[in-house]
């Protein structure tokens, strides 16, 4: 009896203990096994040397690659009165001018044909937001009542809805270029490929034409953007898959540039004759000069460039890598000196 009482008491005590006593787990006792890395000099110095070496290596590779990229830039703004395009600078009529240039050695292919604009703020907020993605996705409901984001490019003076509406579409770059190669005194047109210049997802998924054939019927009761010479469904009448909203020139323009000085891909030179590149020789660039940049002191240029695995020519990356790599190496040397001196001090 007495015994059992005591046992009961003990059991009770144990129960009480277990109910009140904090859990003895690694987590509750803040004793989770932990890795305590120490960035000691003996690890960091070799690490820095390695990183430095790797960076310098990459940097040199980048630098060489970038240096090997060929670039042909032609400013055709025509600010200079000597310039062939000077006449077109303020001309509102259709105006064509041509520039000649020569390529001394083979311009390795594939060659990409860019146009560039400077002092052009495609990245302004209101400008960038001035479009209606629903229209561009082919939603006919928004053809007749475009989003007010497009103001003041929503409706024309007769209050007709504009498709595609908005400042971004309205200001689409509309200079056109032809490039001809002088072979034995004869101008041979270099075929330019207008495909594959925009992101694949843009012309396959993000932008859609309304599923009405012919396309023109979808645009009944709408107007073309005021600055456009022709409506969107006539951008490329030769190819259904490059017409309307999925016209790649249009898509390239619609992808806003990050900075006020930018270039955009215009054409690729992929024709069999020029697959290896543009051979050395004289070339003529004929420009249908439409796009006004004079009012905002902008410049227009054409850039011919080939690309490498790292993209277009850009010396920054290579130099930056070399600099950072060298910094690592220098730092590791400094650290080594500090470390050594400190160690000697300790030994004393």
């Amino acid at each position: 009896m007495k015994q059992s009482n005591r046992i009961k008491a003990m059991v009770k005590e144990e129960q009480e203990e277990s109910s009140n006593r904090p859990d003895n787990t690694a987590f509750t006792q803040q004793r989770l096994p932990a890795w305590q890395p120490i960035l000691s000099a003996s690890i960091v110095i070799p690490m820095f040397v390695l990183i430095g070496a790797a960076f310098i290596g990459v940097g040199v590779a980048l630098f060489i690659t970038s240096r090997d990229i060929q670039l042909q830039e032609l400013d055709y703004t025509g600010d200079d009165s000597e310039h062939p395009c000077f006449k077109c600078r303020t001309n509102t009529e259709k105006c064509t001018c041509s520039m000649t240039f020569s390529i001394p050695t083979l311009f390795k292919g594939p060659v990409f044909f860019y146009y560039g604009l400077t002092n052009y703020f495609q990245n302004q907020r209101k400008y960038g937001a001035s479009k209606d993605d629903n229209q561009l996705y082919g939603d006919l409901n928004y053809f007749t009542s475009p989003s007010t984001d497009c103001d003041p490019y929503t409706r024309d003076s007769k209050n007709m809805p504009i498709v595609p509406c908005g400042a971004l579409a309205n200001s689409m770059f509309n200079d056109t270029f032809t490039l001809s190669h002088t072979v034995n005194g004869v101008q041979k047109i270099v075929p330019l490929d207008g495909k594959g210049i925009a992101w694949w997802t843009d012309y396959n998924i993000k932008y859609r034409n309304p599923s009405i054939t012919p396309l023109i019927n979808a645009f009944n009761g709408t107007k073309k953007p005021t600055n456009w010479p022709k409506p969107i469904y006539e951008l490329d009448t030769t190819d259904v898959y490059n017409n309307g909203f999925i016209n790649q020139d249009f898509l390239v323009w619609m992808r806003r540039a990050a900075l006020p000085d930018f270039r955009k891909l215009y054409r690729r030179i992929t024709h069999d004759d020029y697959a290896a590149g543009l051979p050395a020789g004289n070339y003529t660039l004929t420009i249908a000069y439409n796009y006004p940049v004079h009012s905002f002191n902008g410049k227009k240029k054409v850039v011919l460039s080939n690309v490498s695995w790292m993209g277009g020519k850009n010396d920054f990356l290579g130099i930056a890598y070399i600099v950072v790599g060298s910094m690592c190496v220098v730092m590791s040397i400094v650290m080594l000196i500090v470390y050594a001196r400190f160690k000697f001090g300790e030994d004393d």
Partner: protein
Amino acid sequence: MLRRRLNRLFGGDEGRVHSRTIYVGHKSCPPNEAYIPPKFCDNRIVSSKYTVWNFLPKNLFEQFRRIANFYFLIIFLVQVIVDTPTSPVTSGLPLFFVITVTAVKQGYEDWLRHKADREVNEYRVSVLEDGRRIRKMSAKIKVGDIVEVEEDETFPCDLILLQSSRDDGTCFVTTASLDGESNHKTHYTVADLESDLQYLSATIECEQPQPDLYKFVGRMHIYRNSQEPDVRSLGPENLLLKGANLKNTQKICGVAVYTGMETKMALNYQGKSQKRSAVEKSINAFLLVYLFILVSKALVCTTLKYVWQSKHDETWYNEKTQKEKETNQYLKMFTDFLSFMVLFNFIIPVSMYVTVEMQKFLGSFFITWDKDFFDPEIQEGALVNTSDLNEELGQVEYIFTDKTGTLTQNNMEFIECCIDGFQYKHGDGSSELDGFCVTDGPVNKIQQKAGREREELFLRALCLCHTVQVKESTKQRQDQNDQFDQIDQVDGLGLDHGFLDPPQKEMGFIASSPDEIALVKGAMRYGFTFLGLESKNMKILNRNKDVETYELLHVLNFDPVRRRMSVMVRSKTGDILLFCKGADSSIFPQVRQEEVERIRMHVERNATEGYRTLCVAYKHLSAQEYARADADLREARLALQDREEKLMAVYNRVETDMILIGATAVEDQLQDEAAQTMEALQGAGMKVWVLTGDKMETAKSTCYACGLFKKNTELLELTLRTLEDGGRSREERLHDLLLEYHKKAVQDAPPVKLGITRSWSVAGHDYGFIIDGASLSMVLSSSSEPNSRRYKNLFLQICQNCTSVLCCRMAPLQKAQIVKLVKNSKGNPITLSIGDGANDVSMILEAHVGIGIKGKEGRQAVKNSDYAIPKLKHLKKLLLAHGHLYYVRIAHLVQYFFYKNLCFILPQFLYQFFCGYSQQPLYDAAYLTMYNICFTSMPILAYSLLEQHICIEVLLEHSTLYRDIAKNAMLRWKLFLYWTALGIFHGLVFFFGVRFLFSNPALQDNGQVFGNWSYGTIVFTVLVFTVTLKLALDTRHWTWINHFVIWGSLAFYVFFSFFWGGIIWPFLKHQRLYFVFANMLSSVSAWLVIILLILLSLLPEILLVVLRKPRGPHARQIAAVTPLSYKHLKERE
């Protein structure tokens, strides 16, 4: 303090009507008068804050009263109203999230309260109405109802005990849920009532409800047969409080006097005043800086925008709308300013508040969970009452500790006594029946004993003069046995000796103070056993095994002002005796002076040995004297107002002209590891002040024992004794002494270098300062105002230069005064008070951090504390380990949060310079929203919960490490500037790195170009990785959780970006990020620039970490170190 404050708070009602009248059983009294039922509130308890209807508006209102929430609401509203660059969702969603989470939490808590309220309110109770028992809901009880309560039930409201099933008219209750004291307390019925309550006709007049649990004054008028009403006094012993439990009593009946929200329990249900930690103040200061940065950024951008616009005319490709052209220029500027504010508002993140709150809340669990704080004796661990102050534990500079129960165990043992100047020490077990082993008294060299008569008188006094109860474990009474097994019973703590024979009666003592038990037990050792109190008769078993009975006439209770207590008893022979025991200083003036000197020596010697001494005196009362005292006492007890003062006056009148019999010495053992703890705390640079109500000698010896005073410590004494030396007026003497000590301790002390101000071993001289309550009040309230301020300053300066300070003879309020004095002194040092008793509550509430010891003196200290620990020794780990870690964690959390948002928003700011100040966001809205919520929140939260930059063992071993974080070291402006500079550096690197890359946006090998969203995404990717890796670099303690959240967050970012860019989201107006991330990853240049920029950003960090690494003897142990410790380690070497 608390009481005063509360009294002041609730005093308003009392001012108008001093008392309330209650008609017992709702019967008109006297019976012929018309009965007008008075209006009192019903017994419904409402602890909930909200109802279903007012929850939403009330809760929202309360949440938006917080400055931060309000700020975010304003930003949100601006986004809704003004045309801003980011959609309202970006700031609305996080705000909504925060508000919802808080509302849900508060709603849940309130629901729990509702549930608890309902349970209490719907509890069925028995009410006697016209002689019948009626069951009704607790909420329906009205004042004046007679309520019946059975054993183990909880009292439904505050009751006056009318009837008890026990024949002696008592009942036992426990008040565990009120003040945590689990011992049984005796309450008494109102004397001489009708046995049948149905015929009771009485009114009760009592004070208005007030929150003090231990105070009640009232008067009961009993009307019988149209005579003049009988009047009975009612005191707290008659009042049963709501929330207490009935024990050991079958049932009781009582009349409800306070109900519902007017019960003492409800009145005590008050939140404590909020304490704010130093870290929070730093956060607010930093916040202001960031607010300034934010506003100036917005201003700069607005200004530049208009400057830029004046140079750049409106371009043909981006014409303004008609509306824009018409808008007032200044209004446009203003909306532009607001837009920029919105664009940059992420620099002050909503999530920081959430993270800080979560860190504090979750972090505090580690204290509760710590098994080192578990005390097997009381079966309890540490308790966290507020999690707001975790980090403050790492910042303590001054510790104010109570002595009894905190430094010492409050486990009293009777050591010796002195009777008539002869010393008696109890031998070890082998003593004879008369139990006295006599050692040399200092007075008489010859071994001698006091007269047997005196001995017995002394022992009887010990047996009678107390308020101890005998606890009966077995209900059936048995004949007295020769042997007793004694059980100490203090706060329900039993020590079972375990060798009982069945018939023996277990017996224990219950008392409010352990001294009393020690004394009763001491008397028992010498042959006088207190058997208990039975219907006002105290029984004593004397040496001859005879039972003596004394009628207990009056108990003159102990109070801290008088510092003594007395009983009046009538012996069998009819003699009326008064026995008094109390502190020497309070007894000596009240006794005839001839005996004093002999005993004083004993008392002082005992006190220097660290014992607690009490003097015992007695006096014979003649019948007339007794009659007068009796009448006075009764009158005073009936007084409704100033009862205490009146009682005190009577007590003082009665307790005069006594004869001193002897003194006792009781040892209060030091707490476990008290000395080590104190040494560690001092080593950590904290100054320990002992504030005690005890005598100087006792306290001093405790200080020596704890190592607070060392052998070579020079003591500077400022007590009544030193003040009375020299024969001049106290004022002058005080002035001189203060100046002298100041010269010694402050002016002559070697100037300490800045870095080691808090070092104690450097100075050749250690000073200890001792001051007593009387001197302190002279210092604090000197006659003239300029003097007083000067004295205060001198006093503070002396104290601050002493290693330890002892303040003895302190009243509770004085303790708080000292804390306040130090708290408000120069530099606003962080103070910590630790104590275990009700007398420490005031200083616990006053200090920055209040710590309660779960000791033996009840639970008030614990209830009012911020943290409670079972033992003093736990303080070491609480401060040195937990406090240190919490501080480092939260400091890093705060700095990191500001840093990561600075480098988040800086690129966005810089981008404005390249986009014509058009408020174009650099990042997509999803990134803006998710950055703080998802991508970077978890790693820092995990860090701030788990980081141990130095492991706990090392922290405990090297207490000096605590000094490294002293004075808010990790949140100083210098470090804040460092972090800010780092943030700016990173922001610049991110933005311009990508900017140079984009000088040719053809970044893919297919010649296609990237647009502005690709730009932002690259910057954002670099940002997320750098910020997370920066934290990884700072993490010294990688548990699997850290690994999981750090790598998990990065993986989640990548996953989310793919997901976000992989689908055409129908609810989005613009599919900005469609395939941007995937396209970015297809570009080698993007990869290379991301790697480059991350490394470049982290390079200086890595370099710093390496160079900061400690070397030397401690290097192995202190593997990883705070930013400051390396320097200190070197200094120490």
